[in-house]
């Protein structure tokens, strides 16, 4: 079988799994979980040949084209493509998804809607793979929304809980805001270049058919889609709430794959963004990276801490891409996928054991859950960017790119601060979580007592992911496969050495600070929080962004809808009813006139005649003499006339 069929198998296996599972899930043995996990491994295995093909020849390109919708001159093509980046993404996504499916078997054990969970998860994987493989804007948009749908379904999986239902709805609507921007961007591209396919768009842009401010605006519109999907600064509010979903979902969707889709898309359509667009993207990314880090410091829910860390890392990836570190950003995407999925699964196993997500009720789990502890430690080290671990290589590259960019454009110094500050914060909150959860005295005796190591079906994926979290950075395999589509200005050499030093320093400082506060207790977190009370509350409440949106956007919007409804009912309907009443009034007046005058006249005639009749009736007295007398009178008159 040639490569194309492998790709199609990799793509459509999860879809087949999902459809079978939805309809027959409950009736299958073990509710069909083996089917879904198996399908995922099939998909992973089918993606390996593509990886080898790409590995063998990095400039490898595969096109699968077919007509989907043709309307005479206008048509929407349907195509899949495989190149270096797709190869990697295909393998990484299916790999992580496979293991998360395996992990879910343990985690979701006993859930009433067990079979439906796997159906949704399979469907998600299909959409994600489709997104990665799409070769034109229209198709990527289609999968973009399908991924949004599956995230909606999975976040709101336990929909009995209102919070979960709300989170799902919030996620979808915020994504939809981003998607609309993306669609407008696509339309702009289509009207200008007349095509949806990436190559033709890139050729058109290269040929200068589209440039200058219009292209920048289009780029920003397209970036808006990425902001929605990868939860960048203005549209990031949905990600923390998405933690309502089951933890494996958070691991797969809200850490490894979906949220990375935005970064992947920016990477995929790199030529669309003009340098000015990249500046804006850089700032948005920088803000996201830094501020998410600050919030993570104050959170007590283990999943929310990791969620904010994801936000921060996404900011990093986008920052890398925006500042010319094309390879760095995408490499971080891949490494992040591994160690973040690992951290979430580890957190999941902690939650599974303790049945709580609150760090304040944890502590001293190291002894109880050694495997989880060590795999979590590996993940945290990778996250903080400690050298041998994968995180170090990709994050260092990003910081290098950023510094290079700042050196070339000193006016953007703030970006460097964001990058380095973010690195420090990452180290701090990563190890705050580790120490709070695993070291020190257990704060909740009763829960601690019940704590136990997760079953192998959960720990095996942890270990596998840990291996990759550690090893993913080595061997420069990524640079070999992925080349920037556009010639990028190479920053000054010194940038990398400086970046190396700074990132190590920041990470080390972060870890040290965490050690001092949460293990040794030299700095008591409480006192720090008290001294900077206003700052602390600001951070704890997530910069009040949610409240801002609620008050600034949602509430006035609902008021507007009520206003429209009232307007619609009152004015327009009112006008219609008024017309009704007015015509009825006019008709009543007319009726009155008609009745009084016309009818009146007729009655008048009738009455008059009757009145006259009454008078004449008197003449008919019934007495014969009167008649004769009258007769006589008549004769007299005639005679008179005759005679006179």
């Amino acid at each position, binding site marked *: 079988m040639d490569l194309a069929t492998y790709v199609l198998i990799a793509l459509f296996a999860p879809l087949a799994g999902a459809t079978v599972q939805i309809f027959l899930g409950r009736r299958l043995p073990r509710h069909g979980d083996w089917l879904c996990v198996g399908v995922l491994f099939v998909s992973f295995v089918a993606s390996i040949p593509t990886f080898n093909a790409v590995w063998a020849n990095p400039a490898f390109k595969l096109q699968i084209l077919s007509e989907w919708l043709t309307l005479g001159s206008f048509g929407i093509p349907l195509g899949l493509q495989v190149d270096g980046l797709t190869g990697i993404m295909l393998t990484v996504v299916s790999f992580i998804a496979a293991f998360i499916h395996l992990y879910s078997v343990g985690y979701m054990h006993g859930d009433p809607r067990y079979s439906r969970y796997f159906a949704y998860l399979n469907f998600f994987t299909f959409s994600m793979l489709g997104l990665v493989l799409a070769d034109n804007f229209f198709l990527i948009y289609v999968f973009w929304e399908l991924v949004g749908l599956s995230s909606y379904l999975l976040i709101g999986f336990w929909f009995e809980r209102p919070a979960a239902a709300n989170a799902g709805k919030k996620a979808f609507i915020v994504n939809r805001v981003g998607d609309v921007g993306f669609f407008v961007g696509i339309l702009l591209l289509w009207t200008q270049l007349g095509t949806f396919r990436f190559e033709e768009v890139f050729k058109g842009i290269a040929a200068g058919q589209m440039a200058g401010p219009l292209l920048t605006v289009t780029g920003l519109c397209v970036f808006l889609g990425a902001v929605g999907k990868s939860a960048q600064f203005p549209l990031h509010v949905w990600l923390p709430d998405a933690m309502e979903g089951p933890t494996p979902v958070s691991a797969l969707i809200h850490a490894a794959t979906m949220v990375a889709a935005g970064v992947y898309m920016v990477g995929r359509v790199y030529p669309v963004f003009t340098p000015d667009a990249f500046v804006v993207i850089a700032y948005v990314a920088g803000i996201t990276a830094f501020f998410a880090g600050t919030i993570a410091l104050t959170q007590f829910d283990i999943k929310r801490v990791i969620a904010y860390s994801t936000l921060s890392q996404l900011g990093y990836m986008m920052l890398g891409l925006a500042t010319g570190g094309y390879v760095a950003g995408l490499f971080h995407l891949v490494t992040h996928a591994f160690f973040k999925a690992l951290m979430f699964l580890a957190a999941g196993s902690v939650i599974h054991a303790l049945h709580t997500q609150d760090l304040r009720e944890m502590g001293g789990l190291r002894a109880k859950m050694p495997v989880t502890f060590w795999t979590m430690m590996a993940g945290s080290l990778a996250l903080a960017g400690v050298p041998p671990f994968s995180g170090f290589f990709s994050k260092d590259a990003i910081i290098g790119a950023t510094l290079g960019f700042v050196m070339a454009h000193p006016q953007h110094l703030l970006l460097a601060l964001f990058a380095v500050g973010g690195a420090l914060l990452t180290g701090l909150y990563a190890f705050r979580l580790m120490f709070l959860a695993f070291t020190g005295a257990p704060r909740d005796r009763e829960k601690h007592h019940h704590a136990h190591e997760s079953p192998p079906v959960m720990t095996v994926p942890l270990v596998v992911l840990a291996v990759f979290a550690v090893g993913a950075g080595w061997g420069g395999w990524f640079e070999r496969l992925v080349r920037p589509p556009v010639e990028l200005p190479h920053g000054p050499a010194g940038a990398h050495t400086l970046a190396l030093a700074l990132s190590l320093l920041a990470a080390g400082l972060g870890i040290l600070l965490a050690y001092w506060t949460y293990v040794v207790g030299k700095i008591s977190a409480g006192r720090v929080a008290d001294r900077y009370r206003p700052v602390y509350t600001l951070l704890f409440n997530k910069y009040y962004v949610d409240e801002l949106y609620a008050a600034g956007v949602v509430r006035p919007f609902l008021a507007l809808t009520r206003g429209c409804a009232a307007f619609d009912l009152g004015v327009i309907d009112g006008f219609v009813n008024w017309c009704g009443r007015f015509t009825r009034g006019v008709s009543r007046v007319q009726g009155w006139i008609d009745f009084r005058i016309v009818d009146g006249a007729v009655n008048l005639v009738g009455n008059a005649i009757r009145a006259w009749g009454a008078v*004449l*009736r*008197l*003449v*008919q*007295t*019934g*007495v*014969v*003499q009167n008649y*004769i*007398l009258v007769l*006589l009178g008549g004769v007299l008159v005639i005679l008179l006339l005759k005679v006179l």
Partner: protein
Amino acid sequence: MIGLHHYLVVSAVLFALGMFAIITRKNGVAILMGIELVLNAANLNFVAFSRYVWGGLTGQVFAIFVIMLAAAEAAVMLAIVIAVYDRFQSIDVDRVDSLKG
């Protein structure tokens, strides 16, 4: 010499008397008498004209017809009067006014 005028005057007077009787008398039979008077006045005229104006006997023939009719009429009158009397127990004309309008 007795001329046409004389007879005409007499018949006029008779006619007037007849009419007067018809109009004023309440009793059905009295009215009939009035009618007879009127008829006779008419006969007188017939004959007077036939005598003084035409000379032929036409007037008299008609007079005979009138008499004959008067006889028939009197017979019917009697029947009606009896029937009315039966019905109304009186033949006062003003009481027999069921045809009142």
